[in-house]
């Protein structure tokens, strides 16, 4: 994993970097406190002043008291700076939308200092907002990725600027946030990666030291998996050691490198190791709950000591290497068990009480009364074959008919001359049967075979007489690209109409505003999307009634709007 010897030789060179966002400042975002003012900053060849405030960065041209450029930190994806050797000293902000703004620091003497000050402050500020922004953005992104229809809609409406992105998301996110809050309650606890210690890759920093990158995630994993370390941390960190020292010692400690037989080193973690050992022992002593895997009780009649062909003598003759090997094995078992337990701890928490009592009971062998249920279940499991079970298929619901007549005939249109009761039908069927039974073919008066066969061809599908009856589906008439375009139009129109209709009844000024806007959106849609499509159809000589339904829907919306407007006018006057 890493070179231990070197590490031990140069322990002072060990550097730890802690990215520990837990120390986030909670900020009062209400007041627009100006954190930094930098004068003589050019933007688009115009001199001005750069302001860094608590929530946004802004720039105003010289002599004016308003900002022409203003970005919320949350909108900023990253900042870039010009290389050191360059003559122009610049800072570029790249937004999530892809736009970028470049500031040129023009104060000759202090340009570099100014830039760095701004850069450093931004470096501190951006990550705080990043999380928030990212979350929303990620969510939007995820929604779009998961739902191709929505994505298409987004392309149709937002990218082509029929409605703005905010409008588009306004209704969506509300939905999703509700879902989100619901799912938040029962959010699944994420377990711990078994390899979290492996993720701490030590890097040499060039001067014979090792550098570990610890993230808060890893720290949390360590704490969750090894409660003993957490306890040590709580005991020591604020008073005796700094955080950095604590982790330095952790990595140096024999505890972390337990496979090395390295006794005699006194440190705070040796106690942890002992504690773990104890925990492992108690786990082993407690035994297993599932009798099917209990190797101790597997054998019915073990041979007495001394019998049998194999002797397992006392392992007095183990070499140091073998010892360390078995220590590794022990450690892996323990580590895996701890990781597993850490993942399950949350689930167990409510039933902790119960499990505790039962586990202590399970320890003593008097609790025979408790044991059989598990054993029974396991035994049953072991002898059952799921493919041989009867009636395990999906349950069907029996059809329960009140009037079987109606079921077998289907809903018959109520027509006076056609209407016949089932009795009639039965009668006629019996009539026909009678006729058939006494039918005698009159062979002299039959049709010639050629006429018969031509009649059959004419009546079979594709024949002369059958053409009128077959209605060719739209899907066969219209080329697929037109079809898909039509589909997109439908979804887009549907979305817009949904927005439109959701405004009714219009009872707030906000809705009034929105309904007007929606109408204009609809008009824009009609002119930018629908019209071109209709023209295209006409050009290709397809029947224009493809879009007639769309037109009808939009017209209905216009009518509604018109009615509403006239009523409002009437009320106003």
């Amino acid at each position, binding site marked *: *994993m890493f070179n231990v010897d070197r590490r031990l030789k140069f322990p002072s060179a060990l550097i730890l970097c802690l990215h520990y966002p837990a120390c986030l400042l909670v900020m009062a975002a209400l007041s627009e406190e100006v954190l930094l003012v930098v004068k003589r900053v050019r933007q688009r060849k115009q001199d001005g002043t750069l302001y860094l405030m608590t929530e946004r960065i802004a720039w105003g041209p010289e002599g004016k008291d308003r900002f022409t450029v203003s970005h919320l930190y949350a909108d900023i994806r990253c900042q870039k700076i010009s290389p050191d050797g360059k003559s122009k000293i610049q800072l570029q902000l790249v937004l999530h939308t892809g736009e970028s703004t470049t500031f040129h620091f023009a104060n000759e003497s202090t340009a570099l200092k100014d830039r760095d000050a701004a850069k450093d402050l931004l470096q501190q500020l951006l990550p705080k907002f990043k999380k928030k922004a990212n979350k929303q953005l990620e969510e939007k992104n995820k929604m779009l990725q998961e739902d191709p229809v929505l994505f298409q809609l987004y392309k149709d409406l937002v990218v082509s600027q029929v409605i703005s992105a905010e409008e588009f998301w306004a209704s969506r996110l509300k939905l999703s946030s509700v879902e989100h809050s619901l799912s938040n309650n029962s959010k699944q606890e994420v377990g711990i990666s*078994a*390899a979290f210690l*492996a993720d701490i890759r030590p890097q040499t920093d060039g001067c014979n030291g090792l550098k570990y990158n610890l993230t808060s995630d890893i720290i949390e994993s360590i704490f969750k998996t090894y409660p003993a370390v957490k306890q040590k941390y709580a005991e020591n960190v604020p008073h005796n050691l700094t955080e950095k020292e604590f982790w330095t010692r952790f990595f140096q400690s024999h505890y972390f490198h337990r496979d090395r037989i390295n006794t005699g080193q006194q440190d705070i973690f040796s106690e942890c190791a002992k504690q773990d050992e104890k925990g492992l022992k108690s*786990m*082993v*002593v407690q*035994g*297993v*709950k*599932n009798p*099917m*895997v*209990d*190797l*101790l*009780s*597997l*054998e*019915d*009649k073990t*041979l*007495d*000591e*001394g*019998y*049998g*062909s*194999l*002797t*397992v*003598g006392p392992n*007095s*003759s183990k070499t140091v290497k*073998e010892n360390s*090997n*078995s220590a*590794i*094995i022990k450690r*892996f*078992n323990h580590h*895996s068990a701890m*990781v*597993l337990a850490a*993942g*399950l701890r949350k689930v167990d928490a409510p039933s902790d009480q119960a499990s505790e009592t039962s586990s202590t009971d399970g320890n*003593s*062998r*008097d609790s*025979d009364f408790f044991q*059989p249920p598990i*054993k*029974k279940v396991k*035994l049953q499991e*072991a*002898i059952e*074959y*799921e*493919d*041989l079970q009867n009636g395990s298929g999906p349950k069907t619901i029996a059809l329960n008919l009140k009037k079987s007549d109606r079921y077998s005939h289907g809903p018959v249109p109520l027509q006076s001359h056609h209407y016949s009761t089932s009795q009639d039908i039965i009668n006629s069927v019996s009539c026909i049967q009678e006729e058939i039974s006494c039918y005698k073919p009159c062979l002299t008066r039959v049709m010639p075979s050629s006429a018969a066969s031509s009649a059959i061809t004419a009546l079979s599908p594709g024949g002369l007489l059958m053409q009128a009856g077959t209605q060719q589906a739209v899907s066969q008439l219209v080329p697929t690209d037109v079809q898909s375009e039509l589909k997109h139009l439908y979804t887009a129109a549907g979305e817009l109409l949904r927005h439109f209709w959701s405004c009714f009844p219009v009872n707030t000024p906000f809705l009034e505003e929105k309904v007007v806007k929606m109408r204009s959106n609809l008009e824009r849609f009609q002119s930018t999307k629908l019209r071109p499509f209709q023209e295209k159809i006409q050009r290709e000589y397809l029947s224009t009634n493809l879009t007639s339904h769309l037109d009808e829907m939009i017209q209905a919306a216009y009518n509604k709007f018109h009615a509403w407007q006239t009523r409002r006018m009437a009320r106003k006057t």
Partner: protein
Amino acid sequence: MLELKRTLDAKGHGVLEMPSGTGKTISLLSLIVAYQKAYPLEVTKLIYCSRTVPEIEKVVEELRKLMEFYTKETGEKNNFLALALSSRKNLCIHPEVSSLRFGKEVDGKCHSLTASYIRAQHHSNPSQPVCRFYEEFDAVGRQVPIPSGIYNLDDLKDFGRKKGWCPYYLARYSILHANIVVYSYHYLLDPKIADLVSKELAKKSVVVFDEAHNIDNVCIDSMSVNITRRTLDRCQTNVDTLQNTIQRIKETDAAKLREEYRRLVEGLKEANVARETDIYLSNPVLPDEVLQEAIPGSIRTAEHFVGFLKRFLEYLKARLRIHHVVQESSPQFLKDIYEKVCIDRKPLRFCAERLRSLLRTLEIADIADFSPITLISHFATLVSTYSKGFTIIIEPFEDKTPTIANPVLHFSCMDPSIAIKPVFERFQSVVITSGTLSPLDIYPRILDFRPVTMASFTMTLARTCLCPLIVGRGNDQVAMSSKFETREDFAVIRNYGNLLLEMSAIVPDGIVAFFTSYVYMENIVASWYEQGILENIQRNKLIFIETPDAAETSMALEKYQEACENGRGAILLSVARGKVSEGIDFVHHFGRAVIMFGVPYVYTQSRILKARLEYLRDQFQIRENDFLTFDAMRHAAQCVGRAIRGKTDYGLMIFADKRYARADKRGKLPRWIQEHISDGSLNLTIDETVQLSKHFLRQMAQPFRRVRPAPFFTRFS
């Protein structure tokens, strides 16, 4: 079914190989039960032997299902009595005794509460504790037979609690008239126990040995003895205790010793007290070898016998003080002991018998303390009874540590047929069955019997749900093998690691990997750890590793199953021939892939094994290599076969050693695995394996289409 019926009809023995997890147990049970019903006079009893306690319980549950089905279909209540028998540890309901953890303690404690002289003392002195459950059973339990039905271990306990009877003795008494008895191998094969428990079972019984692939080792183990210096030291204490007790009794109650002497003179060995509770361990030799004559005069009196034991002990101590390995046969040993300390063969033969009698006379309560001296007496009896099939090896030190003196005397049985012979002779039909018995013909040879039927069955599958792959090379084309010359090779170890790593990324849920030996696994795990392979595997799955400690392994196993259950997925590193490979099934998601790293040959340098191989060659004309390969392949198949159970299950079987591709190895796999190995799955690289596995897993992960239940096995032509 057909083959089994033929076996029963012919009243002969059979060897049947049936794939694991296909309903082997229920098929056997249903046919034999039906046979019993049809010909109640031909077959009076079914003795079903299995290996582990969970297996025994499973069999009884299957039987219960069968009986329920009978009742449902025929509408009449059948009067079958079926019960499971296990050791006291699993059956005791005495609150104090059953709380003990180890079987030996339970047995000893039970003995101290139920021995006849204890109970006699209880009569005169009511403060002497006895087991009330046994008293109750002894008073009334024998008059009314236990009502018919199916009794699992827990049912017996419940019944015992309800009636206040001892379930263990109730079961032991009831097996005499039960229709079906389910118990462990040892009750038939180990002469020490068989004599106590199974002596009176009817001759017209059908005996089934399930999971019998290791039966030869069970036979051998039951008749082998190891003596270390520690044993002898403890023996010394035992002898001293005996001497003191004799001294004391002589002063207080000399009549008792005289009575024993008189009895021995008359040869009335057991006539007066053939009480079941008194016999702690019976004679270690087979019933027909026990001499039916009076104990020779030289060891009749207690003092003489103790003196005799002392001499014998000193002789053994002297034998252990050697600096080189000695191997000799029983006659040589007897000759030597006669020359050195003038111990004759005949008194040695009576050693076990005489010790038992003495221990009873002395009324020694805590009999478990006397296991070392019992062991020595058994050794004496065995070595003087059998002149063939055994060997004595005295090793002054372990091979690995030649500097540390740790002398051991191995008295090792080399012929499994000795222990099983009476079973074949006594019972009319013996069926040996397991999932992995290939090649079939070797079992009759090493167990020395003539079967009327031998058959290997394959299974009909709704889909090819097993996928055996033989991986011979790494991606760098370096051959993978656990061969002795290359096993320490860095490239081989790395390739093994890469294989596991790749598989851990594509196989869902559980993977079980078997190594050839524990030491090998330790080494590989250590070097994987140093190379960082284990870390990468941990990114995909949790790792659990078998340890020599059973309790620790049980915990690891449970955690492994837990991790498979909750979807996290885990890898279990285990050892072929270890406890896990012998007794634990990895069905469904507990084992979607089994990887066998290397060919699990036994440690061939052991002298005991060498002696056994030599014996096999001389007596049965089985070549050494044949036997070794056979033994390795049955263990490999055993490990790998634990993953499949039923048609809905599926699993990869990966043999990671290029030697598996050879015809002589492949041909020794069971038919039901062999027939799925195509030419395209031999000598693959890791990449190819991953591709094939991905394809297989994707196909198998589709929902299982229900098909009409078809018969389980078809005869393999």
